[in-house]
Structure formats: structure tokens, C-alpha cells
């Protein structure tokens, strides 16, 4: 073994040859560009990231509390309390129950009944939350599915045939740069204030990006894969359906994942304008009552939905695009 060592190898070797616990060598290894790090360090760093975030949040909210403006930025603790209220066991609910106890005659037989009612009314808010999630999810999914159903075939055409590229690419690029919120007044004029303008807004916000990105992933397929198909006797149609589309599959799927994320952004914009339910609508409503703790809960839920969507897309990717998964490289 007289091969010259790469810089990274040298660092690793010296780290193992000398004392592995020697702090300097360890740090050297940790801050080597693009070098892998031990798994437990990765986990600790990730937790640390969350920890720092919570710490900063707590510190800032403590500052606000000190100035008697706690309502502007609720502490993590108060957000957790607000969450408990959704299930009928938070401090806000408890305060109402205590007030009821204080007002009622001792030994009043309706006390347990009243207590149940108070808790039930607190849980009604959970029903609202669930309704908001459902309504918003439906809007996003509807618009996203329409955008995908139209965008994928058009993108494939644009990526496969230069004629369609010339026909559609410039106009698509143009529309893409029109800020979507600028279309809201027109959408309301055209479609009123029901579901249609909201779905249209999300659709417009994702469709044009999706088309361009699908076309791009088709164009990234190496041309020699097409040549191979032709010399094996494939027709032009088969070159598209049997080579270009499956080869671009992972790229197209990634596009869907990214566009789904954007769809949720446009959803909030759509609901800020006019709605009677939905996550975005509720956030605006809570702002009017200064229910900042509930706004935080809604933000948390939006984050979780995004995370779940991402997990779903990734699981799908792992199942159907094994061949493109870098982890499988031998």
C-alpha cells in the first residue's frame, strides 16, 4: 500500500493512529469540508439546533413578558398550555371552571354537568382546528392534482419536442414571473369569493413552475439512452414513453414534492384574502383577537403537515425509484 494519501485520509489516519479521543484530531475531522461525521454527533447537532431555537424563543418571550407585553410573543410554555386547552385541560379552561365553582352554590347538583359543558366547549375549538386542516388540505390537494395532471403531460411534451418548447416555453416563463398575488383581484372578479378563486390561485402559483421543471428533467436525460432505444428498434413514441419518461421519473417526482410545498404557501395567501375556514383564514382571525398562542399552534400544524408530506413523498421515492437512490450505490 504505497498509494499517496488524500488529505482526508491523512486526517483520519492520524486520528486513529494517535489517541482517538485527542480533542484536536477529533475537531480536525469534524470540520473537514464534506467529510462524513459520526452518527451520534449528527443527532446531537440536530437536537442542539432545536434547543437553541427554543432557548432564543424562551428568552425573547421572557423579555416581552417583563415589559408586560406577553401577549405579543407567548412563551413555549404558554403555547403548550393553549394546546392543552384544545383538549379541555389547559389553564384557560381551568380558569373558567374555577370561576364557575366560585359562582355556584356549594353542593349544587349541576356542577359536574356545568364542568362537562365547559370542557366540551373547549374541545369545540379542536373541532374547528380539524375543520380548518380538512378544508385547507382539500384546497391544496385539489389545485395540486389539477396542476400535476395538466403540467406533467405538457412538461413532457415541452421537454421531448423542440417545437413544443419553442411554442410554450417563452410564454410560460413570462407568466411565471407575474407575481401570483397580483392576480387575486382579477380572480375575485372572475370567480367570486368561493372555492374557485382559491384553487385557481394555488393552481397558477404551481402549474407554470411545474411545467418548466418537468420539461427540464426530461431534457436532462442523456441523449445516448435515446440512441440505444432507436438502434434496438424503438419508434419515436416509444423513445418518449419507454425511455424519456421513466428516466425522468425521479426528477418529475422531485418536482411534484417541491411544488406541493409551494402549493401550501399559496394556500395561505389565498386564505388571507377571503375565506370562512382554513388554516390561513383562522390565523388572520386569531390575530384580530390577539390569540398569538393559537397562531403558534397553527404554525406548528402547518410545519407538521409539510413534514408529513415530505415524509410521504420520500417514502414513495424510496419505493418506486430505488434505482435512483444514491444510498444504494455499491
Amino acid at each position: 500500500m504505497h498509494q499517496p494519501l488524500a488529505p482526508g485520509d491523512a486526517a483520519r489516519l492520524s486520528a486513529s493512529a494517535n489517541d482517538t479521543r485527542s480533542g484536536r484530531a477529533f475537531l480536525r475531522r469534524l470540520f473537514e469540508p464534506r467529510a462524513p461525521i459520526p452518527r451520534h454527533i449528527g443527532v446531537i447537532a440536530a437536537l442542539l439546533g432545536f434547543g437553541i431555537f427554543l432557548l432564543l424563543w424562551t428568552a425573547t418571550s421572557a423579555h416581552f413578558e417583563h415589559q408586560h407585553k406577553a401577549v405579543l410573543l407567548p412563551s413555549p410554555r404558554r403555547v403548550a398550555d393553549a394546546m392543552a386547552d384544545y383538549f379541555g385541560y389547559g389553564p384557560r379552561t381551568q380558569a373558567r371552571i374555577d370561576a364557575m365553582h366560585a359562582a355556584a352554590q356549594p353542593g349544587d347538583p349541576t356542577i359536574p354537568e356545568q364542568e362537562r359543558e365547559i370542557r366540551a366547549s373547549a374541545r369545540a375549538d379542536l373541532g374547528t382546528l380539524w375543520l380548518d386542516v380538512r378544508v385547507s388540505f382539500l384546497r391544496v390537494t385539489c389545485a395540486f392534482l389539477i396542476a400535476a395532471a395538466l403540467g406533467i403531460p405538457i412538461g413532457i411534451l415541452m421537454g421531448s419536442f423542440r417545437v413544443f418548447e419553442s411554442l410554450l416555453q417563452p410564454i410560460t416563463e413570462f407568466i411565471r414571473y407575474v407575481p401570483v398575488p397580483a392576480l387575486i383581484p382579477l380572480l375575485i372578479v372572475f370567480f367570486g369569493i368561493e372555492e374557485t378563486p382559491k384553487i385557481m390561485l394555488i393552481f397558477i402559483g404551481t402549474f407554470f413552475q411545474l411545467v418548466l421543471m418537468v420539461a427540464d428533467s426530461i431534457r436532462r436525460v442523456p441523449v445516448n439512452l435515446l440512441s440505444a432505444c432507436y438502434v434496438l428498434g424503438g419508434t419515436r413514441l416509444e423513445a418518449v414513453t419507454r425511455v424519456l419518461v421513466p428516466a425522468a421519473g425521479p426528477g418529475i417526482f422531485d418536482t411534484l414534492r417541491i411544488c406541493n410545498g409551494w402549493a401550501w404557501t399559496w394556500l395561505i395567501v389565498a386564505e388571507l384574502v377571503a375565506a370562512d375556514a382554513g388554516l390561513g383564514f383562522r390565523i388572520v382571525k386569531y390575530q384580530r383577537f390577539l390569540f398569538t398562542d393559537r397562531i403558534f399552534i397553527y404554525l406548528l400544524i402547518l410545519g407538521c403537515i409539510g413534514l408529513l408530506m415530505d415524509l410521504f413523498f420520500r417514502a414513495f421515492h424510496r419505493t418506486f425509484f430505488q434505482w435512483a437512490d444514491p444510498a444504494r450505490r455499491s
Partner: protein
Amino acid sequence: MGRSGQTLMSPCLELVGVSKTYSVGGEPLNVLEPVSFSIDQGEFVSLIGPSGCGKTTVLNLIAGLEEPSSGTILIDGRPARGPGRDRGMVFQNYSLYPWLTVEQNIRFPLRLGVNTRRPQEELWRDLAYAEHLLEIMGLTKFARAYPRELSGGMQQRVAIARALLNRPRVLLMDEPFGALDAQTREEMQELMLLLSRLERSTVLFVTHDIEEALYLSDRLLIFSTHPGQIIREAVGPLERERSLDIKMTPVFLSMKRELTRLLRSTAKPTFDRDLLRRTIGKKSSIR
């Protein structure tokens, strides 16, 4: 099987005055002067020459991937138009479909319309042939692996098997072993030689490696650059049965020496030798 005495039959592949001119910024660029040659059934012919001599263009023209600017290409005496399954091609970069397993890659031609329209029993026979190819290529164990999990040599074997499945009249190979390391390359050469005997394939093999061409071929066509044209035709010096050791024999080496010198003489210098030599003499350079 011989090279002579085939005058009554039309050759398997025949090129008559085939040339290619590209237009670069309005200016015509001659990449291939008119070339004419023919290959008989079962013959193994190599095109050798420096890179940029148009030998790959010749293959692309025969495969139908490009249109010749003039001339005709005949397969069994009939003009070839566009790509077709009568001409198989093996590319330097393997061109395997990464989303298909080894087995699916080899069977890929069977899923194309040209083949699915054929009678059922022929398809069954081809499926059995695919199985046979997997076996003789030593790929049975890797049938369910994806191309990226294989070494370069194995990937190229998959590509060769895929091209053979159509039972093409001519197998076109474009520097198929160019990306392989020296040991794998020799192994593949031996495999190719035995395979072409076994399948009685007609092969047109493009390479810039003189040794490889000499070892594999019945006949060699030597190309020069700018514009590409055939400057010499040579008959392979070797018996049909040959092992890798033959590369050390005097006959082989003298032929190799001769062709190497020929190719070297056609190459234009790309750097200033004299300047370098003078600089070495001075010892102290810009440093």
C-alpha cells in the same frame, strides 16, 4: 466463412461513397470524405484511427442515427433507412437503462412494438435466448441487480447481450472497451472474440487501440483525421483460434509496430516539442 469466394452473394454490409458534412456556422465542415467498403457475413472488421477521424460518425451513419450527406448504405443489398433492429449497436458509455434490472435491460427490445407484433412462439424463443445470453455472459447471478451496482465490464456485457437479442445482421461497436481498465479490457476482448465465433456475428468494431483491433479482427480499416478517410486496409495476421498470448508473438508485434508508426505519421503535433526541449536544456524555467 472465408473472405473470398462470396462474389455471388451480396455482402452483409456495404458502404458506397458514404460521406458526411456538417454545417458549422454556415461553413461546411467535412468530417468524412466519401468512403466505400463492405463486410461479409461472419466477418470481424475494425475501424481504427485517432480520435476525431470520423470513425464514430461512420458507425452512427450505418446505425441510422445520422443521415449521410451522400452515398448509400446497404444491408444484404438493400438500402438501410433510419435505425432498425437489423443493426445492433454497443456504445462506449454502455447506455443501459438505469431503472431496469440487468434482465429487464436485456429483454428491453422484446417490449418494443417491432417485436411485440411478432408471433408468440418467436417471442418465447427470444426469451429463452435472453436467458442463454445472461448465462454465457456470466450475468445469471446479477439478473436482478441494477446497472449501477455492476462494474464497467459487467455493464458492457449487459449492453452486448441486449444488442445481440435482436439477432442483428451487423453488430456495431463504438469503442466498447475504451472506459475499462487494462485487465478487464483484455478479458472483454477474449469474450468478444469467442462470442463472435459462437454467435457467428458480423461485427464492425471501432477503436483507437491498435493492439485490440489486431487481436480481434479479420480485417482492419485505418482512418486518418481531417477529413476522415480510409488510408489503408490490412488483413488480420492471426488464425481464427487465438489466445491472449498471441499479443506477444513476433508476427503480432511487427504488425502492431507498422500500424502504430503509420498512425503516428498522420497525427498533427498538438504541442511545441522544440520549445519544451529547449526549456529543459536551459534548466532554469519560469519558476
